Structures are given as structure tokens and as C-alpha cells.
């Protein structure tokens, strides 16, 4: 590591241009800084949406129903869902860690279109601001749920138009990021970095980017149609004019199902980086994992109507979509097995990122397996639109994408800020997070089986006990999360200096100083071997 002692270039955190401070950040085209811009913005949205989730749990205790009316509650879960989906999990890992590490991992100095990259961030912020504006203008916060089902979304007096437009702008940001990443991977790989030498995170980001550009435009146009419908009454979704609400549902889910794989693929990619580093061995089944990413992206685009099994589709469609849903679960299973296989005969250095990665696997499996239950037609008829679904998607989105986000943050933290956090505090936060999480969301699964519908302001008495359990779970979760974020925040500000390679990783980012220099590499490296070759490291030391 001593080679870096004499680096000529300063760290990317130091302003060198003519602009200083905030302005330097807001006009930066450095992919690392843009990654951090996303991270900071996103953390704020995430905290707000979590706060709303917390309030929703209190409402279900029934003691707060005087403060929160039914209308407000409907607005709460809509806003909670919109923020979590469009402002957190969809851009999530791709925009933060993809931006920060994709160019580094393939040995490039930046993405292909750095200014477009900054523009994407501004689109993201514009969308976020519009979303917030929609809460306080027009008829008030939208109350339709994040899926904006027509014709309710056409008739409600709330400010659906602006919220939907916000989602459109956010979609635009997501597409531009996708275009940028695909081009970057095709054009900017370092000499010798051929496709199968890329770290698997890059494969994950690559397949995600393809979904981003192939699916997002569909939701963009769908949302435009909703706006046109509200302003001009074009009648495509409005049954009063001959339109068809089912068409809306199809178009919405054509995007929004693939979107769930936009959420999970980069998360899986991050996990695939973490496990080999702490097992000190090469990944098990490199190609299987790379291809399963592409397979998930491909088949994942073909299963959308499993969200509409009770909507009265034709029997043919029901059969096909249920079948395809089962098939899309296979590549996820392959990944899980390969991760576990990577632990086999490793030399495991147990550290916080690994703990969260393994937690990811456990929670994602529960989420995925409940997904498979929902995919079986006979079961779906019962659990559709109940808390079982709510439980499922919190397991995959929070237990999956969220935990992977945390794991990735812990893993790359020393690289990004050049500082180290307190491991003991992180371990301590894990227990309340894990216990709280399962009380909260397993409680929801049980509620769903009992027949508790989702998006209910008040529940029938037989559901009360489980609701209390879930709410208590959310309190544990808060406790853990506050400790977790507090620890990291403290470390960013006052943490001790981190080494260049604290975990003994072998991918390219660990060959850089912490934090990395402005253009990543003094000299573009020439790649002569695969991404996870740990013997080479051993040979050296």
C-alpha cells in the first residue's frame, strides 16, 4: 500500500477547481461525488419515509386515530410507498454504489457521459421536489397507493397529477443513468478487463441498466396517459368513456414488476462482492451468477401480470404468468446457492459487512419464498392485497435491498470516506434490527393469512393482537436503525482514518487510496486475471 504515499492527485473529497464547498459539489461531474450526492439526498428521503412507516404502525394501535384521519392515512401509505420505491430502492444501490464504484471496478476514470450523470441527479432531485410539492398543493396528498390504479386515480380529488408527474421525472433520471452505465461498461473497460473479468457487481449493474431503459419508458407513457386523462379526459383508462382499467394495470405492471428487479439486482451484486472478500476465496460459479443476473432481467420482464391474478384476466394469461413467475425464481435460487457455496472452505473473516450480507440472504429467502407462494394461483387468490403481500415486499425490499444497501455501505464505507466506524456499535445495532424486523414483518405475513386487507385505516378486532406485535417490532427496529445510522454519521465526521484495504479485498477499488484520488487511477491498470484471485494476494504477502 505504500505505493500510494506519493500520489500526486488529491483525494476526490478535496476541492481543487475554481469552485469551493457546496458549489463545487453541485457542479461536479466526478462520478464519486455524484454517488455521494445521491446518497445524501436519498438518506433524507429514506428517513422521512421510515418516519411515515412508523406513524402508520402507531395508527394500527388505534390509539392515534384521532390525530390521523382515514384520508391522512391513505395519503401516508401512498407517500411512504412512493418515496420508498421511486426515491429509495429503485435508484438505491445503482445510483449510489453503481456511480461510485462501477467506473473504478472496471478500471475507468469516470462514466462515459459525466455531465449526463450530473443531469440525472438533477432530474432525481427535481422529481423529489415535485413529489414533495404534490403533498401540499392542489387537492392534497394523493391517496391511491403507489400503484395509482385507474379509475380511482382519475376520480380522486387529490393531487395525483403532480405526484404522477414526479414519478415520470424520476423515471427519466433512471433511464439516463441506465444509458450511461451501459455505454460505460461497453466502452470504458480497462485494457484486459474482458467481460468475464469484470467483478460481478458490474454484471448486476449492467443487467439492471437494461431493465431501466427497456421498462421505464412504459411507465413513463402510462403516467403521461393518466395525466392526460385527468386534464383532458382522453378516455383510455376511464370505463365511462370506453377505456379499460385493466389496460392501466397491465401497463403499470409491465414496468413495475421489472422495477422490483431494478431494486434487487444491484443489491445481489453488492452481496456478491462482499462474500468473497470475507471468505478470502474466489466466488463459487462466476458465470452462473453473471448469467443469472441477465436471466432475472430477461425473464423478469415477462411476469408482470402476477400482480393482477384476481383482476379477471383470461385463464390463459393466468396460467402463463403463473408459470413464468415460477421460472423467474430459479435464477434467484441459483444465486443463493452460489453464495452459500462461496462460504464453503473459505477462511472466513467475520466482519460487520458479512453479518449484514448473511442477514440479507436469510431475509431475502423469506421474501422470495413468500413471493413463490403468491405466484401459485390458488394461494394468490387468498393472499392478494392482504398484509401477506405487505410482508412479502418488505422482506424483499427492506430485508433484501435495504439490508444489502446497509451491507454495501458498511463494506465500502472506509473506501468512500477514508474513515472507519465502530464495529462494536454496528454489531450492537444488528440485534434490535433483526428482532424488530422479523416481529414487524412476520407479523404482517400472519395477519395477511388471517385475512387482513392492506391499505386499511382501521382493522377488525380479530387482527388487533398481531398488529400490536408488529408495532412493537417497529419500535425495536427504530432503536437499531438509529444506532446504526448514528454510528455511521459519527464515523463520517470523527471516525479514525481507515486503511486503504481494511478488508483484504482484491478488486480494483482496494488498490486505490482511501478515499480515492480524483481521477481514480494515476495510470489505467492493465488487467491480466479474474476479479477474485486471492492466491495472488497471498503470494505477495
Amino acid at each position, binding site marked *: 500500500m505504500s505505493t500510494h504515499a506519493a500520489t500526486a492527485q488529491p483525494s476526490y473529497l478535496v476541492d481543487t477547481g475554481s469552485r469551493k464547498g457546496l458549489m463545487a459539489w453541485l457542479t461536479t461531474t466526478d462520478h464519486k461525488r455524484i454517488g455521494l450526492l445521491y446518497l445524501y439526498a436519498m438518506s433524507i428521503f429514506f428517513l422521512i419515509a421510515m418516519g411515515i412507516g412508523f406513524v402508520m404502525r402507531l395508527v394500527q394501535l388505534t390509539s392515534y386515530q384521532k390525530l390521523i384521519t382515514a384520508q391522512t392515512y391513505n395519503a401516508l401509505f401512498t407517500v411512504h410507498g412512493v418515496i420508498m420505491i421511486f426515491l429509495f430502492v429503485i435508484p438505491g444501490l445503482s445510483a449510489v454504489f453503481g456511480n461510485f464504484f462501477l467506473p473504478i471496478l472496471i478500471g475507468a476514470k469516470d462514466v462515459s457521459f459525466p455531465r449526463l450523470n450530473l443531469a440525472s441527479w438533477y432530474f432525481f432531485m427535481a422529481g423529489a421536489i415535485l413529489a414533495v410539492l404534490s403533498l401540499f398543493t392542489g387537492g392534497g396528498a394523493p391517496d391511491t397507493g403507489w400503484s395509482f390504479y385507474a379509475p380511482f386515480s382519475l376520480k380522486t380529488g387529490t393531487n395525483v397529477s403532480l405526484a404522477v408527474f414526479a414519478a415520470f421525472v424520476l423515471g427519466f433520471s433512471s433511464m439516463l443513468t441506465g444509458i450511461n452505465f451501459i455505454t460505460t461498461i461497453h466502452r470504458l473497460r480497462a485494457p484486459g478487463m474482458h467481460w468475464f473479468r469484470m467483478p460481478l457487481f458490474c454484471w448486476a449493474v449492467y443487467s439492471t441498466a437494461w431493465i431501466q431503459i427497456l421498462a421505464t419508458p412504459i411507465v413513463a407513457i402510462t403516467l403521461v396517459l393518466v395525466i392526460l386523462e385527468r386534464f383532458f379526459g382522453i378516455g383510455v383508462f376511464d370505463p365511462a368513456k370506453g377505456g379499460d382499467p385493466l389496460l392501466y394495470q397491465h401497463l403499470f405492471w409491465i414496468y413495475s414488476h421489472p422495477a422490483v428487479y431494478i431494486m434487487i439486482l444491484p443489491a445481489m451484486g453488492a452481496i456478491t462482492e462482499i462474500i468473497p472478500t470475507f471468505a478470502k476465496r474466489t466466488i*463459487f460459479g462466476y458465470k452462473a451468477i453473471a448469467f443469472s443476473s441477465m436471466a432475472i432481467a430477461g425473464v423478469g420482464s415477462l411476469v408482470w401480470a402476477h400482480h393482477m391474478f384476481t383482476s379477471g384476466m383470461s385463464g390463459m394469461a393466468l396460467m402463463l404468468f403463473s408459470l413464468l413467475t415460477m421460472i423467474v425464481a430459479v435464477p434467484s435460487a*441459483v444465486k443463493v446457492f452460489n453464495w452459500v457455496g462461496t462460504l464453503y472452505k473459505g477462511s472466513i473473516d467475520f466482519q460487520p459487512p458479512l453479518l449484514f450480507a448473511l442477514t440479507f440472504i436469510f431475509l431475502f*429467502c423469506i421474501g422470495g419464498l413468500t413471493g413463490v407462494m403468491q405466484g401459485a394461483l390458488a*394461494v394468490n387468490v387468498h393472499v392478494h392485497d392482504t398484509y401477506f403481500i405487505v410482508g412479502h415486499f418488505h422482506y424483499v425490499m427492506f430485508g433484501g435491498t435495504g439490508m444489502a444497501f446497509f451491507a454495501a455501505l458498511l463494506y465500502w464505507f472506509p473506501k468512500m470516506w477514508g474513515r472507519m466506524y465502530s464495529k462494536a456499535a454496528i454489531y450492537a445495532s444488528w440485534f434490535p434490527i433483526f428482532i424488530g424486523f422479523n416481529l414487524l414483518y412476520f407479523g404482517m405475513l400472519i395477519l395477511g393469512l388471517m385475512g387482513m386487507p392492506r391499505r386499511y385505516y382501521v382493522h377488525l378486532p380479530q387482527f388487533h393482537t398481531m398488529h400490536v406485535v408488529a408495532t412493537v417490532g417497529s419500535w425495536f427496529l427504530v432503536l437499531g436503525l438509529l444506532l446504526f445510522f448514528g454510528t455511521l454519521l459519527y464515523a463520517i465526521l470523527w471516525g479514525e482514518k481507515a486503511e486503504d484495504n481494511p478488508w483484504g479485498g482484491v478488486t480494483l477499488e482496494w488498490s486505490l487510496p482511501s478515499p480515492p484520488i480524483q481521477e481514480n487511477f494515476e495510470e489505467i491498470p492493465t488487467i491480466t486475471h479474474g476479479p477474485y484471485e486471492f492466491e495472488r494476494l497471498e503470494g505477495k504477502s
Partner: protein
Amino acid sequence: MDWMNQAAISAQKSDAVFFYVFGLSVAFLIFITVLMIYFVIRYSKKRHPKAEQIEGHVGLEIVWTSIPLVLFLSIFYYGWTNYEYMSQAPRDAMAVKVTARQWSWSFEYPNGKQSKVLFAPLGKPMKMEVRSVDVVHGFFIPSFRLKIDAMPARTNTTWFQATKPGSYDIECTVICGVDHSLMLSKVIVVPEEEFKAWYFGGEEAPEPGKSFRTAEAHPDLQGLAPGLAVLTAKGCLACHSVDGKPKVGPTLKALYGKEEQILIAGVAKTIRVDDAYLRRFITNPMDQQVRGYPPAMPQTALTEQELNDVVRYIKTLN
């Protein structure tokens, strides 16, 4: 077996698939978790200082691709065939028109009879023709594991055959506006004769649901508290329990002094149950509606004395 109030054939069909997937899931989850923990301990840095660089194993990849694939396909097949059964109504099913509107359900039977709660004969197939007059709603009977969306300008159908007499919740599952969570009703399953008596009876025919509930109630009025005697004699116990069990109407147990949401002319209000409320409600049940219950309580003539007894008795149930 009575898993979560299983009360129709569709529920048995759905639960069978559920248990199949659930069993597989638990097995795989335990297997993966245990293996993970075992590896982390067995191959920790201390116990296993030097990692072996295993790049993969084609055979294993094939195994763990094809076994899940086969299992998933079997889940699909089982789920699909059982669903086919759950969704295809037999020819002789009685067709009931279910109409959803913001925010209530109504049911119309082939002979034109209408009701706010759904009456169904035990062991006979009933076909539901579900429509909506405004936005999308969801017609859901948890105990039957049955759900179908109510779409505007389109009729969706499903069917059930109840296997247990009783009263079961109907809930709306698709967000449809501010009172989405109040869009509830009941399905009341009674023996066929009783259903027929109502169905073929004229306007005055008593609503079904008495027999299985009067069986629970005390037949002998002697020695009962005066209020309870009135409740029994006037048939209130057909719909109300005094022990906390929900029936068609809310239980009378611990009712007094409770805070409740009621709807007056469609507007939700929170009130505390007191003497005046009880009297008003019993004498004019249609003027207001308790959240979560269909507006199905008939007006019953009670003397002032009976009314006093009833109210006093309800107070004693706290």
C-alpha cells in the same frame, strides 16, 4: 382441520397448495440458514486459516438449477389446477349479482331479492357475479380464501361452496377511497332449508341465520335476567352475542362505554356508547351504522320497560 376458519371447499383447495409451498419453503430456508451458519463457524479464519480457491462445479450448478426448477413447476401446476377448480363455477350454481360501490356491497339473487349481507345455503354452490358501479373494489371472503376484483364495466365471476354454517367477513381489498376500510359486509351460511324459507318466502320472510344462532341462545326464558330474556325473546341474539363473539352484528359484551366509529349519513364519527345512544340505536337502527357491520339490523318494537331492561342488561356485560 380448522386452519384459520376454513369454511369452504375453495379454502381447502387453497390451503392445500399453501401447505405444500410452505413445507418446501421451510425446508429450504432451514437448510440454507443452517448451512450458512455451519460454514461460517467451521471455516472461520481460526479453524481454517487457508481458503481453498474453488471456482465452481458444473454438476452442482445443474443440480441446484434443475431441482428448484422442478419443484417450482410442481408448485405452479398444483396451484393452477386447484385454482381452475376454485374459479370454474359448476353449472347448477345459484348466480348472485354482487355490486360494489363506494363504500358498500349489495347482493341480488336470481329471483330479484336483494340484501346487504350475503346469504348462502350450506353445501350448495353459489356463483358470484361481481361488478362495480364506480372504481375498482376487491371482493374478499377470507374464510373461503376467495377473492375477485369488482371492476367497472366488466363482470368477474367466482364461486364457492360453504362447508360450515356461520357468519364470515366480507372485505374490500382494493383501495377505493377514504372509507375503503369500512367497506365490509358478512356472508351468512345457513342450512339449505332455512335459506329456502327466506328465498322463496315473501317480503316478510325472516332473514336466515336464526337457527344456528338460536341453538346457541337459551331456549328457556325463565330465570334469565330480564334484559337477557328480552334479547332472547325478540331474536336479538340471532345477530348479537353476549360473550364477545362477533356475529352479524357487534357483540354486546363490553359495549357500554366503548368508543366506536359510527357512520351517520355516510359521515364517520367517533362516539362513546351511552344510554342515549343505545336507546336511539335500538329504536332507530337505520339512522346510523356501526363501522365494520352491514346496515342490516331490523327495527324491532320494544316497550319502554323492555328497552330499560335491555340497556341495563348491556351495562352489566362490562
